[in-house]
């Protein structure tokens, strides 16, 4: 009871200072008036009676003095003392502006980098997705063990079984990402959106801000003519007018009525989804267990853990595997939506960056600690005097800590400004496909964390020197010949330890940066098997409502003819799957005369028109390209990649051999035998670091498609062709948009953009760390040399060779460097493993990198030691001996 009341009293005095002062005044007034009344009632003298108030005041004493005293007694004395410390610290800073600037800038660099990276981590990882209880939303995938793809899509019958049999999900719904041609509002636009059933919205738990969402009735053909807009589209195309509800818009040549608008933050299935239509599942899909077509989203029932949900769903999948042969090797894989949106690789990257900046911050702290130590040595006399005058060790520590915390606050403030600028640079160099990047900024959370880190920083780099100082003993000072405490042997050891620790951290950082850079260089040097330079790509998706297959073929034919006629176009062709971004469709295959084996990998299939391989610069190894002799009615033909040729027909030519899609017992009327007419060199088409798969290509005439990627080889800058290409499309269909127009170089650099990003950042942090640590090593050596001036002077006076003196000092410094290096290499060997998922073509313990980093660091340390050593060797013995 007393404890609690005491706390409340202190709290009130501290945080409700106004009320506290007012109440004290009221209390004193009350006291004075009672005293005055008392005097009045007892006094007989009229004059005294008149002066009763004055008498009361006199008896009370100095009101202001006692009010202040009361304030001090109520626990505020501490703060008054702090104010004194702060004033003292500020005065010290004014007296040594150079020191303050260097220390402040060092801290600013460390804290600035940390703040910038933390604000990215905060936005991408720590901030919850804009859905209620977002961590309970799960992406539900088919775990395709046959293909080693953990995030594969479902067939509707499987999904229906998973949904009806599970006890762990409150919602489970299929969805699809869909592209739309938006027409009737000026230039035709290609828009990415989603086909979502009502239940998918329920799983996400998001309501529209205007209008309503779909109902189950909308999910049947004929009732699905509705659309929900994103906030962005609503703002851009309809000026945020609520009257948009009920309006019609034309998508893929079909009119749909707007029924709702989603909140700004809603972005599903992807970051760039701009509108949503109801998901209508075709009747055929409802029964075809082998038709894998839909990703799915679900929500965990309240109280159900992810682990339990995973095991329950896996058990169902296992039953389905036994029940239905096509399900063999297909499990279920569930990922919490936040992890799905910001994937594991990116998370790892960001945590590694945060680790890297934390190391930079530590190095900066160590530098400032060393600076403070040096200064403490200079201030030793002051400290000694103050202690002799009776200042307690605790009081001194507090005063020195006030200084360092104040210093870190100055650095922290500058650091936040640096971070704001740094984030601008970061956003400019960040790969454009980084999710949630627009949420990145220095916000309240970031500032709060930065303030805490700043305070901690001040305490970390201030505490050691402060404690060292306060331990100063007169006797020790005397024994060390006037240089006690911080400049004594203990102080030297402390400094060297700090430098060694700094160098160790630098080794770890440099090694990490080296590995990432080597990965990046390896990737850039990897042969793609095709030539991305000078290639323009774009996708064209013809709406089914407007085109049948024959009309579609005709349109693509005349479009390609017009494009080929554009001056500057070398060749043009089509393929169904985007190069370098989308995984092509694949299926099982059987080679004639070879039994299908259990673990045969699937074969990808793409539809291309003649001239594709020439256009992308892929080399035909054997056979021929497709040409006019391939017709709808002629025998089915294919070009396969070298990988597939070697897999099915090792040691012989694959030309003339036959294969078909589907398994062992597939009906040959459904999947006819296909004759191989050409073999093309392997292309790394899904990404530089992706394995090569068995690939096949089918001529366009034998399998026409309404959606194609148009690939154009240009003789000059490909982007300069864009307007002519647009004109070519306008000439054949003015309502048909071209989307994703970009050069293949852009796509390629996008692919390795994340790696370049992380390599660049970690490398810049490593360089920053190196610079800071070098300055630290240099500073400490200079200081230690200065301390040894007398000794060096004696050596020189006794005839020592100046070169020997230089060597002595450098070797002394190198010892520290070696210790740091050894610890650092140990640290690098045990930590770079964490980054192994980010590396490609280089081992996390790559000896070349580690040896290179070590040699480089030793060189830098030698240099940092050489300069002060040379200065020492040039010391005039007379001057040196006269010191002290």
């Amino acid at each position: 009871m007393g404890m609690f009341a005491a706390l409340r009293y202190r709290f009130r005095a501290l945080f409700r200072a106004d009320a506290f002062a007012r109440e004290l005044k009221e209390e004193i007034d009350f006291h004075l008036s009672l005293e005055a009344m008392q005097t009045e009632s007892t006094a007989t003298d009229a004059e005294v009676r008149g002066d009763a108030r004055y008498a009361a005041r006199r008896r009370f004493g100095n009101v202001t003095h006692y009010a202040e005293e009361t304030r001090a007694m109520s626990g505020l004395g501490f703060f008054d003392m702090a104010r004194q410390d702060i004033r003292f610290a500020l005065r010290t800073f004014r007296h040594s502006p150079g020191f303050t600037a260097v220390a402040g800038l060092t801290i600013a660099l460390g804290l600035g980098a940390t703040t910038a990276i933390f604000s990215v981590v905060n936005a991408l990882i720590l901030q919850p997705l804009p859905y209620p209880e977002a961590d309970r939303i799960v992406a539900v995938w088919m775990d395709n063990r046959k293909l080693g793809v953990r995030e594969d899509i479902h067939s509707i019958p499987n999904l229906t079984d998973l949904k009806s049999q599970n006890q762990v999900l409150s919602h489970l719904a299929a969805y699809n990402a869909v592209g739309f041609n938006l027409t009737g509002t000026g230039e035709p636009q290609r828009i990415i959106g989603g086909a979502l059933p009502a239940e998918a919205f329920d799983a996400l738990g998001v309501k529209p801000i205007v209008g309503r969402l779909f109902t189950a009735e909308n999910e049947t053909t004929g009732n699905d003519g509705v659309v929900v807009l994103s906030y962005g589209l609503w703002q851009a195309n309809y000026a945020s007018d609520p009257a948009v509800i009920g309006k019609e818009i034309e998508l893929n040549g079909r009119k749909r009525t707007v029924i709702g608008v989603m909140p700004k933050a809603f972005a599903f299935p992807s970051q760039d989804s701009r509108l949503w239509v109801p998901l209508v599942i075709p009747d055929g899909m409802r029964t075809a267990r082998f038709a894998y077509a839909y990703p799915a989203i679900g929500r965990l029932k309240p109280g159900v853990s992810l682990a339990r949900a995973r095991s329950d769903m896996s058990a169902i999948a296992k039953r389905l595997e036994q029940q239905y042969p096509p399900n063999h090797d297909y499990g279920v894989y569930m990922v919490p939506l936040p992890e799905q949106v910001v994937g594991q690789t990116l998370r790892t990257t960001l945590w590694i960056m945060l680790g890297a900046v934390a190391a930079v911050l530590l190095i900066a702290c160590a530098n400032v600690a060393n600076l403070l130590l040096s200064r403490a040595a200079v201030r030793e006399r002051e400290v000694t005097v103050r202690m002799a005058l009776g200042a307690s060790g605790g009081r001194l520590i507090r005063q020195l800590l006030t200084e360092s915390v104040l210093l870190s606050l100055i650095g922290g403030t500058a650091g936040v400004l640096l971070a704001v600028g740094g984030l601008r640079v970061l956003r400019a160099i960040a790969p454009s496909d980084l999710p949630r990047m627009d949420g990145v900024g220095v916000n309240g959370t970031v500032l709060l964390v930065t303030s805490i880190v700043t305070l901690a920083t001040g305490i970390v780099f201030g505490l050691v020197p402060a404690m060292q100082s306060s331990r100063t003993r007169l006797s020790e000072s005397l024994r060390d010949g006037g240089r006690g405490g911080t400049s004594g042997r203990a102080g030297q050891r402390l400094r060297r330890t700090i430098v060694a620790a700094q160098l160790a951290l630098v080794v770890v950082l440099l090694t990490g940066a080296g590995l990432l850079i080597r990965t990046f260089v390896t990737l850039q040097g990897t042969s793609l098997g095709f030539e991305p330079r000078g290639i323009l790509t774009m996708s064209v998706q013809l709406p089914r409502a407007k085109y049948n297959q024959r009309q579609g073929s005709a349109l693509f034919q005349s479009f390609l003819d017009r494009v080929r006629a554009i001056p500057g176009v070398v060749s043009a062709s089509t393929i169904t799957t985007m190069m370098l971004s989308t995984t092509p469709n694949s299926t099982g295959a059987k080679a004639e005369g070879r039994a299908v084996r259990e673990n045969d990998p699937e074969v990808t299939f793409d539809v291309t028109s003649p001239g594709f391989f020439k256009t992308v610069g892929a080399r035909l190894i054997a056979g021929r390209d497709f040409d006019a002799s391939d017709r709808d009615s002629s025998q089915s033909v294919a070009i396969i990649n070298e990988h597939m040729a070697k897999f099915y027909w090792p040691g012989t030519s694959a030309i003339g051999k036959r294969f078909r899609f589907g398994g062992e017992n597939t009906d040959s009327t459904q999947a006819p035998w296909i004759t191989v007419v050409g073999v093309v060199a392997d292309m790394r088409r899904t990404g530089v670091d992706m394995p090569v798969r068995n690939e096949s290509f089918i001529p366009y005439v034998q399998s026409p498609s309404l959606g194609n990627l148009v690939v154009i080889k240009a003789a000059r800058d490909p982007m300069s062709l864009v307007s002519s290409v647009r004109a070519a499309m306008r000439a054949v269909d003015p309502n048909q948009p071209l989307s994703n127009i970009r050069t293949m170089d852009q796509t390629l650099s996008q692919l390795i953009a994340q790696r370049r990003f992380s390599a660049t950042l970690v490398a810049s942090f490593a360089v920053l760390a190196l610079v800071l640590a070098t300055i630290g090593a240099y500073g400490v050596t200079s200081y230690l040399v200065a301390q040894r001036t007398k000794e060096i002077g004696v050596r020189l006076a006794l005839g020592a060779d100046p070169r020997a003196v230089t060597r002595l000092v450098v070797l002394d410094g190198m010892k520290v460097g070696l210790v740091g290096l050894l610890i650092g290499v140990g640290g690098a060997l045990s930590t770079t493993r964490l980054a192994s998922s980010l590396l490609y073509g280089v081992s996390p313990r790559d000896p070349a990198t580690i040896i290179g980093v070590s040699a480089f660091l030793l060189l830098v340390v030698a240099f940092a030691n050489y300069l002060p050593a040379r200065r020492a060797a040039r010391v005039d013995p007379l001057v040196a001996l006269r010191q002290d």
Partner: protein
Amino acid sequence: MPKNAKSQQDELLKGTLEMLILKSLTVQPMHGYAIVQHIARLSNGVFAVDHGSLYPALARLQTNGWVIGKWGESPTKRRARYYTITASGRRRLGEKVSGFDRVLAAIDGVMSGS
């Protein structure tokens, strides 16, 4: 009174004033003025100090949780702050008194021995 004597008395007060306040509050909860009156009455006016010095002492007693101050109504219908001694305040008083007794006994011994 001479300045020097006053500062000496201040020193003495730091310990004893607290003890006197605690002692007064064992009778009943009181406001500041009443405490002053109570102490003056008990010491027959010998213990005449600045009334103001009571308030820093009360603040210290409150931060230690030995005394609780609460606003209440005085007989004259004015708002007044009433102080109550807590259980730990009583313990503190006990310690103080026995310490004081020891000092008194020591002084007594010295004086009678001379």
